């Protein structure tokens, strides 16, 4: 355990993270692509139509992983927010900032595919149902956090403000998960992640799980690439400031740059 913690702390050094992520990214992207292709093949050509929902069940194979990832990325951001506020770790800020657009995109995919599934099955694209509304609130929180990052120039100050708002917004994640149990919703209750096991037939469950793992690896690869870009952006910012200070000093001494 102590060794694992030590290696995690080692990895949390930005320079080591850049080296480690450069080596891992191609493998992660390849594994994600293969799993997504295999999952799509099973979802489109092997999984049967549902006895009630017919062929529209195929929307589930992207709708459900998108919903899981939208919540997973927010949970990762909440953990990073703790890293920012408790340990003031710069890589926690970076992880949090890089995760927000990815989580927002999966929340948007979940809402769009849900609407396109809702129209043929429920007769409407949208209802102000607790599950749908709480997912919309998640998307709005994501957008608010992205906007807050852009408003505040100084990264460490922005990180603390965003971290506080992220933790406040985390209350919405269990609301999304349990909304179908707590309220009478048009949205169906959980059929995979539930007490007593999944209620989906294996012919549909396997493609769903393969796609969920594939999309998760894909999202983690994107997150890693976005974190690398953010680390470089901060180095660019620091070097630009240092260069400007050096030029100022040289100008004050009357020397050419």
């Amino acid at each position, binding site marked *: 355990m102590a060794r694992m913690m030590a290696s995690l702390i080692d990895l949390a050094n930005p320079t080591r993270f850049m080296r480690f992520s450069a080596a891992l990214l191609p493998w992660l992207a390849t594994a994600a692509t293969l799993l997504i292709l295999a999952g799509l093949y099973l979802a489109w050509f092997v999984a049967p139509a549902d006895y009630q929902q017919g062929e529209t069940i195929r929307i589930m194979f992207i709708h459900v992983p998108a919903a899981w990832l939208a919540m997973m990325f927010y949970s990762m951001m909440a953990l990073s927010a703790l890293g920012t506020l408790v340990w003031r770790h710069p890589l926690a800020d970076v992880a949090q900032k890089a995760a927000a657009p990815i989580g927002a995109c999966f929340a948007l995919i979940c809402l769009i595919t849900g609407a396109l599934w809702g129209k043929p099955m429920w007769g409407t694209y949208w209802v102000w149902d607790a599950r749908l509304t709480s997912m919309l609130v998640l998307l709005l929180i994501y957008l608010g956090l992205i906007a807050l990052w852009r408003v505040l120039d100084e990264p460490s100050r922005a990180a603390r403000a965003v971290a506080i708002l992220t933790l406040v917004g985390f209350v919405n994640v269990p609301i999304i998960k349990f909304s179908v149990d707590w309220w009478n919703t048009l949205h169906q209750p959980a059929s995979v992640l539930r007490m007593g096991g999944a209620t989906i037939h294996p012919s549909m469950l396997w493609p769903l799980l393969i796609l969920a793992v594939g999309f998760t690896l894909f999202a983690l690869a994107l997150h890693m690439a976005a974190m690398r870009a953010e680390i*470089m952006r901060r180095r660019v910012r620091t070097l630009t400031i240092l260069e400007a200070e050096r030029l100022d000093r040289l100008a004050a001494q009357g020397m050419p740059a």
Partner: protein
Amino acid sequence: MSGLLAGFGPHAGFILASYGAAALILAGLTLAILRDHRAQKRALETLERRGAGRRSTRERS
């Protein structure tokens, strides 16, 4: 493509629109992240080539 459309029954449009929207959003996100990564890498390389962040020899002397 038309075989796939027929295979998906009367709601094929909804199914294909779902997959199309997801592909479009994920492709846009991937492109944006890759472009940002490349832009930051170039900016960093330019600054490092100029020797930004290091004290100049004249300044030290």
